[in-house]
């Protein structure tokens, strides 16, 4: 029997790009086992990816069509400045500006620290252990209530054991557009992660799998945030460890 074909040939054979090894493979159990392993990998990688929602697709296509008539940003030059600056914080801040210039077609001049006028300060969500639990705690706090029509009237901070539902609704505080002085420690880090594209609409604290954490929700700047009957629902939620602001979990919610 001839030498076995090498892995490269077997892999190419799988793709119909190396027919010369066909004869050997047909009679070699060892090579067929190797082929099976490669075939399983190919099948796994080829698992279809669930498409985004039609709304997400519409928005993306619409933004691209709208962008045709706008000048392209000088992105590379700005990133060069970022690298030269050397500082991570500065890099993230400038990157935020660059990215906005590159993708936003409607509100590119929104300030990096943009906050919704209806910012929800939800207090402490308590213990949260998984993505579903996180969402279950956030969503009830965003349903329209009378409190949603009472901006600029903060109530006392929630206690550490506050949970979802009526209790947490009571715990909500709807902030005015003016920033409150007790900004959560990791707000800057959260903004850097979402690169300033969206408005900060939701702030809370929690214990994520036992780790004290800050929770930040952002939504697109174009969402109704002024004079709307409800509150803007965050489309991106970040949970960061309060100790060093590293990212514990990120969730994107369908709008």
């Amino acid at each position, binding site marked *: 029997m001839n030498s076995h074909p090498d892995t490269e040939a077997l892999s190419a054979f799988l793709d119909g790009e190396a027919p010369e090894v066909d004869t050997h493979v047909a009679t070699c159990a060892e090579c067929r086992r190797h082929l099976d392993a490669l075939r399983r990998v190919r099948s796994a990688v080829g698992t279809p*990816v669930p498409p985004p929602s039609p709304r997400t697709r519409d928005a993306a296509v619409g933004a691209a069509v709208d962008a045709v008539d706008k000048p392209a940003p000088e992105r590379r030059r700005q990133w060069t400045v970022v690298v030269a600056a050397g500082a991570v914080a500065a890099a993230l801040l400038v990157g935020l500006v660059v990215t906005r210039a590159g993708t936003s077609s409607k509100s590119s001049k929104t300030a990096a620290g943009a906050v919704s006028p209806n910012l929800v300060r939800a207090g402490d969500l308590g213990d949260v252990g998984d993505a579903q639990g996180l969402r279950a705690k956030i969503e009830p706090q965003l349903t329209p209530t009378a409190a949603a029509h009472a901006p600029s009237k903060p109530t006392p901070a929630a206690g550490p054991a506050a949970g979802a539902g009526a209790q947490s609704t009571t715990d909500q505080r709807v902030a005015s557009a003016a920033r409150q002085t007790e900004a959560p420690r990791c707000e800057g880090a959260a903004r850097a992660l979402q690169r300033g594209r969206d408005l900060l609409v939701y702030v809370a604290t929690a214990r994520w799998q036992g780790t004290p954490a800050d929770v930040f929700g952002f939504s697109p700047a174009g969402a109704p945030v002024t004079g709307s009957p409800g509150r803007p629902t965050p489309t991106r939620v970040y949970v960061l460890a309060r100790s060093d602001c590293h990212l514990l979990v990120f969730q994107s919610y369908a709008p």
Partner: protein
Amino acid sequence: MEAAREGDRDALDRLLRAHYDRLHALCRRLIGNEADALDACQEALITIARRLDRFDGRSSFATWAYRVTTNACFDELRRRGRRPLAAVPDELPAPVDIGEATAQRLDIDAALARLPVEYRAAVVLRDLCGLPYIDIGDVLGIPVGTVRSRIARGRTLLVPLLGHGNRPEPFQRPTPAP
């Protein structure tokens, strides 16, 4: 296609819409999380829309769009290198969505994330997008022989990373038969 190139916005809308899901899937697998994939896909769509008049037709539109999108993903990955990775993947269209299919998808993303990006791109373009080697070479700007090598190495690295129920012994490079 021609109408889109000549400035027909409705035609451009239809063209981008027809390719969106495929380009998003490429972004999702190359980048590994939904939020960054959506960002990269958005960047790619904008680039495609703006540069469509420069598309010379030497490759198919799909191949050209994959090239633009792959570059957008590389840019996104470089940017992401400057910030922390998401600890838990995203995408929560509904609370009941986390099931077996999602778990499998997370396995694939986690495994792909451990590949060098040049291997990852070659494998994804082949196994997810179904491009022939010559088109992958066009997308990545490398010779076909290099495409073949990267796909083989990428798949080989993935064998132990992708958990499969009845996986036989660890994959090893075949040795010469006696």
